[in-house]
């Protein structure tokens, strides 16, 4: 197994390089379509000389293709350029912000997946039952609540009115509660629905009956036998949701002052801080690729048929 797994991973990593290049290329050119950053970084009354100087200093006076080649050669040397805004190395800004996002996203996904598996499976256990209906209502409502709305309400209720939690910030465990809760609602809702859906089919498959005939209790039937069969779609969707978190926990990071990459990215888009934007996108893209490899590896681990399809 590990043999085919290694081959599989190696191939994935190699084939991941080209898309990464595509992402870098896309971001580089698209970013430069969004206008000249000079307006933002120079005083409103800046003279043409100042503008020319600014362009020369940042290389914007070159043709875009030349700029891109320069950028590529920089990247190869692991130099990601300097932030226009903070004059810091872009890599530093990005690496500083990234762990905060990862922690938040990791904690959120862990909770969301666990909770959704439990709720979704229980709902699927008796489709159309009261419990199922309730879970359906809860999850679809939870998936559709506007998150900034939820976040602000959360602050108003739990921080301002009840004074149980801090309003924002990153100090202490309490500070994690509201950000995670806000991030959680959508993945939880979506996952419950997906898990429920695939569990309904898995629970009516013949092998569940076999498991029961062995004396397996319902917990085992649901969470061991059926769940693993139902995992593929849930895993895909969970992956996409995780990607969404890595790529843009913007609302939460903005509202709660969480110094993460989502906020960094949107700020650098709005501020036309190209170097930071490119570095951030590159890093998240690498993360997302890694995540996808992980997910594919999970498929393969979960289901030998997939693994063999890949190996042969």
């Amino acid at each position, binding site marked *: *197994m*590990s*043999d*085919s797994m290694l081959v599989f991973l190696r191939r994935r990593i190699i084939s991941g390089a080209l898309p990464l290049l595509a992402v870098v290329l896309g971001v580089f050119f698209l970013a430069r379509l969004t206008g000249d950053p000079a307006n933002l970084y120079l005083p409103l009354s800046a003279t043409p000389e100042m503008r020319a100087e600014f362009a020369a200093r940042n290389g914007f006076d070159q043709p875009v293709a030349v700029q891109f080649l320069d950028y590529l050669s920089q990247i190869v040397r692991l130099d990601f350029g300097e932030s226009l805004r903070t004059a810091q190395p872009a890599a530093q800004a990005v690496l500083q912000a990234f762990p905060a996002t990862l922690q938040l996203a990791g904690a959120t996904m862990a909770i969301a997946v666990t909770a959704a598996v439990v709720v979704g499976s229980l709902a699927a256990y008796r489709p159309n039952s009261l419990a199922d209906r309730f879970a359906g209502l809860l999850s679809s409502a939870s998936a559709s609540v506007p998150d900034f709305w939820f976040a602000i309400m959360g602050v108003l209720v739990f921080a301002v009115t009840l004074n149980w939690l801090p309003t924002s910030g990153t100090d202490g465990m309490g500070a994690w509660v509201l950000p995670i809760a806000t991030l959680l609602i959508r993945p939880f809702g979506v996952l419950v629905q997906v898990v429920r859906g695939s569990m309904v089919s898995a629970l009516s498959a*013949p092998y569940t009956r076999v498991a029961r005939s062995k004396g397996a209790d319902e917990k085992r039937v649901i969470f061991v036998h059926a769940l693993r069969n139902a995992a593929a779609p849930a895993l895909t969707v969970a992956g996409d949701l995780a990607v969404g978190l890595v790529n843009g926990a913007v609302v939460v990071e903005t509202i709660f002052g969480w110094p993460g990459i989502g906020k960094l990215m949107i700020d650098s888009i709005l501020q036309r801080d190209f170097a930071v934007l490119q570095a951030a996108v590159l890093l998240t893209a690498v993360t997302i690729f890694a995540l996808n490899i992980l997910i594919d590896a999970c498929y393969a681990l979960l289901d030998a048929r997939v693994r*063999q399809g890949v*190996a*042969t």
Partner: protein
Amino acid sequence: MPETTAPPVGPLLRASGLTKSFRVPRSASGSTSLRALDGVDLTLDRGETLGLVGESGCGKSTLARVLLMLERPDRGTLSFDGTDPFALRGKQLLAWRRRVQMVFQDPFASLNPRLNAAELISEPWRTHRDLVPRRDRAERVRRLLEMVGLRAGDAHRYPQEFSGGQRQRIGIARALALDPDVIVCDEPVSALDLSVQAQVLNLLAELQAELGVSYVFISHDLSVVRHVADRVAVMYLGGVVETGSTEEIFTNPRHPYTAALLSSAPSPLRSDAPSRERILLTGEVPSPVDPPSGCRFRTRCRHSEDLCSRTAPPVEAVSGDPAHTAACHFPLGPASAGSGASGG
């Protein structure tokens, strides 16, 4: 279509040297290949029924899948009416598909649980649109259902609402829907009760008599095989070890494995059938992952000698009949065959 106008010479279907391997896990790490088919040679004539028997796991279903082009063989060739079906494309391939059909061993998994019986049976007509005019389809479905002993009212029921045997009959009806020339039947009747089995077997025989359909008939039930087959091929561990006319094989088996197989059949009900002593096979069942050298059967063969472990026996005509071949260095003599097995 040149294939169909060409004068029919030779057998309808000829497989030679078919070999097919699968990757299987060896241990916790690493995998190895399992040779499910190992140089299978086979012919099927027009209007003939070829019985295919052999131990479970010897590769019968795999062979069937290769014959239906569901698997591509690693080596070996297939020829149907003189052409290689794997080389066919487009319309010609479609025409070939119509002519060769299969009844799957697994009646549940081979039926899409989201389609009802009528949809399942009429499904082939969606691809072969001209075969049955749209307005006749409902009637044809009804006839097919009744042919296999189901009720017309069953048309709207879904696979999981049928019993095992009923599902199997839907599979048979579906295979018949295209009026094929060849049907590969993988255990078509094992899930049926005797009366329905009789009905289905009669149906197959009628079709053969009327339309000249050929069958590859895979079954464990030797009495069924004996009843339906014109010729029998005996498989062991991925290879054909003996072929011959049904009569020859059943009365005069020359390969020790065939003899053992025949002797293991449970005592038939009827007192008029000859009762024989059972030849119990001894020794480890060899694994297709790691087949024995030389003759594949030698590890369980009472007659094996040195030679058997060194060279694989060639397939040779035995007992003077060119149609009766066996792959054995020391074929059983005609004396020890048939009823004589009880003495041996």
